[in-house]
């Protein structure tokens, strides 16, 4: 059964609107991609990083726009077709004198539809202008090596950054036990014994950066007198008083004998 002219017209109208919607989505995606590319250039991100969010945006934006393509959206652009196009679209397979008359009327009005009327020229001009400006900025920033941030350096700094750590103290070391191996505290015993041995070290002045012959004169320093102005000796009270009287003679004799020897 051949498709009715109204059926063909409806398909063509939908196809035309779909093409315009896809074109609009492509331009929108291009603008977003250019802005992302500019961001990557200024922040020294790898340029392909702009592709991923642009692709996600392209998918979501196009999906949303394509979903909205309906005869109601065409009617919104052409008030003369208001409620007629959706009625025809829902009933074009039916056949009666009223529907046929309505199909003819709608077909007549659809001839006046121009695909260009679905293009928003104002928006399109703005988007092209934005793309041109962003392109110049990208070229300029690349030529003059304008960078707001070195991405690689920032990543390395982040990697090297160590946050505050608590001291890792082995609690066992703080407790002393007779049987404990003290090498962890005092070091290797074999190394400590090195201290008793004679070291045969020879300084080769030729291999040293130090010029022994070139000795600077000693630095003169002024010392402040710290000695007290008055010195006085006193005996310790406790020395006398704490020795019981019966032992005082013995102590005195003891000290005399010592001095004699």
């Amino acid at each position, binding site marked *: 059964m051949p498709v009715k002219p109204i059926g063909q017209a409806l398909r063509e109208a939908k196809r035309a609107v779909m093409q315009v919607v896809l074109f609009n989505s492509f331009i929108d995606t291009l603008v977003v991609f250019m802005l992302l590319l500019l961001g990557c250039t200024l922040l020294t991100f790898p340029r392909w990083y702009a592709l991923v969010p642009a692709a996600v945006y392209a998918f979501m934006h196009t999906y949303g726009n394509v979903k909205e393509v309906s005869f109601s959206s065409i009617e919104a652009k052409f008030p003369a077709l208001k409620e007629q196009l*959706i*009625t025809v679209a829902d009933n074009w397979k039916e056949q009666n004198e009223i529907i046929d*008359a309505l199909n003819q009327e709608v077909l007549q009005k659809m001839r006046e539809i121009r695909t260009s009327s679905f293009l928003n020229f104002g928006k399109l001009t703005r988007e092209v202008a934005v793309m041109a400006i962003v392109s110049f900025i990208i070229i300029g920033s690349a030529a003059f090596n304008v960078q707001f941030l070195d991405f690689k350096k920032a990543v390395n700094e982040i990697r090297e950054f160590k946050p505050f750590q608590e001291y890792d103290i082995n609690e066992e070391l703080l407790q002393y036990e007779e049987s404990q191996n003290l090498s962890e505290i005092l070091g290797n015993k074999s190394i400590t014994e090195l201290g008793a041995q004679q070291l045969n070290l020879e300084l080769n002045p030729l291999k040293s950066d130090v010029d022994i012959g070139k000795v600077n004169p000693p630095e003169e320093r002024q010392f402040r007198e710290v000695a007290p102005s008055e010195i006085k000796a006193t005996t310790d009270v406790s020395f006398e008083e704490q020795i019981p009287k019966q032992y005082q003679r013995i102590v005195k004799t003891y000290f005399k004998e010592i001095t004699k020897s």
Partner: protein
Amino acid sequence: MKIEEAKKTFDYIFSELNKVIVGQTEVLKEVSCAVLADSHALLEGYPGLAKTLAIKTLAQLLDLKFSRIQNTPDLMPSDVTGTYIIEETTAGKRNFKFQPGPIFANVVLADEINRATPKTQSAMLEAMQEHQVTVGNTTFKLDEPFFVLATQNPIEQEGTYPLPEAQADRFLLKIRVDYPTFDEEVEIVNRFTEDAKKATLKPVLSKDSLQYLQHMTRLIPIANDLKKYAVQLVTSSRQKKNLIEYGASPRASIGLVLASKARALIEGRKYVSKDDINKMAFPVMRHRIVLSFEAERQGMHADDVIKTLIK
């Protein structure tokens, strides 16, 4: 007949009606919608607003059998449907013969329907719904087209029997007849107080033409979105529990789409618009919803509630 011709016919009918009725354009349009939808209409308004005159005049323009039932509390069902009477033949033999009541007409004007007892009101139920009348053991088919155009006034509730919901639901539309505007009233006074020549009306629509227009009404296409919108409007009346105690039945959905199609035809359109649905939602739904106490407390009427549903 084309849509354009149908519009011309209705324009002519309205111009003829305006020779008798001043204003009330919307009322006349809604009554015509009920006629085109092959259904019944209930006109409600205060006394003296030309409800009965409007129906009588419309009936004159249609080349159909017209009858009038003046409802009173002592009106019996048999007065409406008809009854068997004894008839004596020339040979002297007596036979029972069915004497049809006023319901056996194409256009029935049931004036002040709420004055009839519930028994008499329900006698009309079968006729309205089934387009048939059962008397005794015999069922009589009514002649097509058949529609009841009833009137009632909202005041003087004493000694009246308000239509039960089941019977009110049989009416496709409940048309509210409002007071005329000041200029219209001046025109009414001029027309009926001067010795002007009484307008003579000739039938415009034959039975066949009317039935064809009723057939055309059903052929008017409607977009699926608008059909869903109409159904949503009716179903939302069942969900708005704060304002509506009982919502409209699926019969209201059928009625709303059909009445919208009829309105589109009267206006000469080959499709139903959202505006048709919004306008017809009032007469289709106002007698099918029961307001809640809260809505009544707020002083709301059925039309106010329907307005909130349309929003």
